[in-house]
């Protein structure tokens, strides 16, 4: 009997990493009108942002169904495994509710973790848990590793506009930044499971500089991930600049379709897991 790690597609976890660490990713769904697309399965991040920019209506998203989780959990249970299921903050998505509902009927132990974060924050927690699982740790131990990692996470990100967060109903405390006279680029963080304002800058180069400074102030880190919508060059440059703050390679990934619905294409951010 082993422990298996399950997460959801809002973790933005790249497929190769998920595969290498044996993490099962349950996709959310993004809808363009009536067309339903499984996040990361039916539509890639790049393809999504192309459609997002061209789409006259804002796409909608929906959490994975209970059945989706039940299927994944049942498979692991049938193989005789216990499960640690690691997800996006329940203040940002109903995903955890589906996972919890599915966990009840599984016939094996399912430990559900609310990471109180989103995107690569979730992925870094899932990766830490997966490594512990590979070392043969028990479900309790793996869950403890995940919970400890949650306490070590930070994410700061910048969006070009708050419009997507606002229309998607995920703006949280960043509401305070809406409707200003001065045009600004909002600097945000996820804090206590919600989007909070962190500061404001006036230009994208400054936003990148500020992200860099903020991450540098909090180091050193076990892991750093730079996430973006459609700015691979900016993300790669930021990753290079931050390389000295962690012994692991800095990961770069795009946020994926579902997160992209709420951030818009201009998003760039850094998720960090600080040293023990």
């Amino acid at each position, binding site marked *: 009997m082993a422990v298996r790690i399950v997460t959801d597609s809002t973790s933005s976890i790249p497929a190769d990493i998920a595969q290498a660490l044996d993490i099962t990713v349950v996709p959310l769904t993004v809808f363009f009108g009536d067309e339903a697309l499984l996040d990361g399965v039916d539509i890639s991040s790049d393809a999504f942002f192309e459609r997002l920019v061209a789409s006259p209506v804002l796409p909608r998203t929906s959490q994975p169904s209970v059945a989706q989780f039940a299927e994944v959990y049942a498979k692991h249970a049938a193989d005789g495994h216990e499960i640690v299921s690691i997800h996006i903050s329940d203040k940002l998505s109903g995903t955890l509710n589906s996972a919890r509902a599915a966990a009840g009927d599984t016939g094996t132990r399912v430990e559900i973790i609310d990471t109180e974060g989103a995107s690569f924050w979730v992925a870094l927690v899932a990766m830490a848990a997966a490594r512990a699982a590979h070392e043969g740790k028990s479900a309790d131990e793996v869950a403890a590793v995940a919970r400890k990692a949650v306490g070590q996470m930070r994410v700061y990100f910048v969006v070009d506009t708050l419009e997507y967060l606002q229309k998607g109903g995920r703006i949280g405390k960043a509401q305070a930044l809406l409707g200003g*006279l001065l045009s*600004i680029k909002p600097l945000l963080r996820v804090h206590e499971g919600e989007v909070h304002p962190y*500061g404001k800058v006036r*230009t994208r180069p400054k936003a990148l500089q500020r992200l860099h400074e903020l991450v540098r102030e909090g180091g050193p880190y076990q892991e750093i991930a730079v996430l973006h919508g459609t700015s691979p060059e900016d993300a790669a440059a930021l990753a290079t600049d931050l390389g000295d703050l962690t012994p692991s390679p800095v990961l770069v990934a795009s946020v994926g379709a579902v997160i992209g619905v709420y951030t818009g294409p201009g998003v760039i951010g850094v998720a960090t897991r600080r040293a023990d």
Partner: protein
Amino acid sequence: MPDRPNCIDGPLFRRLVEAGARCVEANADAINALNVFPVPDGDTGINMSLTLRTAIDERVPASGTVAEISQAIARGALLGARGNSGVILSQFLKGFAGALSHCAECDGSDLRRAFAAAANAGYQAVGKPVEGTMLTVMSAAAEGAQPVEGPPSSVLRAALDAAERALARTPEQLPVLAEAGVVDAGGQGIVAFLAGAVAELEDSEPRLRIDTPARAASAEVVSEAFLAHTADEMYGYCTQFVILGDVLDLDRIRGEVMAIAGSTVVVGDDQVVRVHAHAEDPGPLLSLGLRRGTLDQINIANMDAQHVEFMLRHGYVAGERVEIAVVAVAPGAGLERLFLDQGAAITVPGGQTMNPSAADLADATARANAEHVILLPNNSNVIMAANQAAELAECACVVIPSCSVPEGISALLAFNPELDSKTNATNMTSALGQVRSGEVTTAVRSAIIDGVAIAEGQAVALLDGRLACACETPSEALVGMLTGVGLSNGALVTLYYGASRSAGDAEADAHALRTRWPEVEVEVYEGNQPYYHYLVSVE
């Protein structure tokens, strides 16, 4: 020969300070004219005389010991200090009073000690003392007084003589003064103050010669500065107007205004009188003006409405204390709106030519009703008064030394009410250096600065406090300054247009910039600041 006392008692001490203050006030315009840059800026003569005016107000008892009266004067000066020169002056008075704290009366030796203490206090108030300034002049006065064995009149006379000699040497110590052809304005203020006191003691008229550079005849620039908003009351109507007439009685009008309004500033001459006052009802003020002459430039702002609007916008509950708040100095209604919009709790009107006093700033920090207040002075000549206000404030108060409006906006954007005051101070201070600050105004006199000839009336542009160019029009000066910046692709230029420009003017200038630099973003906001056609940030 009048009677020269061997000792100065409390009431005489007060009379000497009053006489010094009168002499500074009488020469305020001439002292203002000693500015290095020929642009409207923090006027030294006005700042020193307003500082002295609050030093000797009704809180100073008519009778008492020298210790009591000098302490009361020093306290008033600390509160009323405006501009860097006013703050340094207030520190002199504090040092002076400190040395007299045991004196019922003071003799010559007490005075010598007080001069030394005053000079010392001045140096301590300034982070990096520069010679060739009022510090040097005060220090010379103290040194001149030291060897004198004699009555107070001899000590004071020696101090004045030494101060005058030191003043004359200031251009040798500070090359900018030599180039502008002036002596140090703050030092001149000290000399005027001492000259007034000496004349009072000697029962003569103050003898003072101030060589000022040729200056625009218009009283506008000088007098308007007297209209420095005093933001000590947030309620009622801030009422400003000009009375025009042929034989106006300035003193009488001042008395009448003071009888019915608060925060009054009444200045001018027998033909033009400017009035600034706060009143519950602006009607009687206007009627009063109409009885004396015709009215012009009437401007009435409802401070209640401003206050209520602010409270509503920011969801404040009356009386509810917040953890952390920002107080920002803003020189115009548009800029006040921008600062409030970006999360400042309170704005204090002020900037170039209208430096708020330490008390104005301390009052604003109290109104912010917060455990921690972060103060943004937004003008290099307001920073010292802000520091003084922080010391006077009852809450924990930090000054972020923003030298300009663009720096202030940049710092405010880095403010996060969810973070503690120390983290905010660090973040906001590091944001200061991320923006360059430009200004476009009109030269108030002809001058040669850094080898550039400037004619009175020309548009001049400054970049980060240094002269950038002088041109015929504000539009040209704007382009000239930005050419010197070396704009990179993706740079953002923000224009805050002043009261002298219309929205159409500003848009036309912005369009010209976008055409010339297609890779640069240009944004335009209404600033309403006086005298400055544009405040510009480049980032």
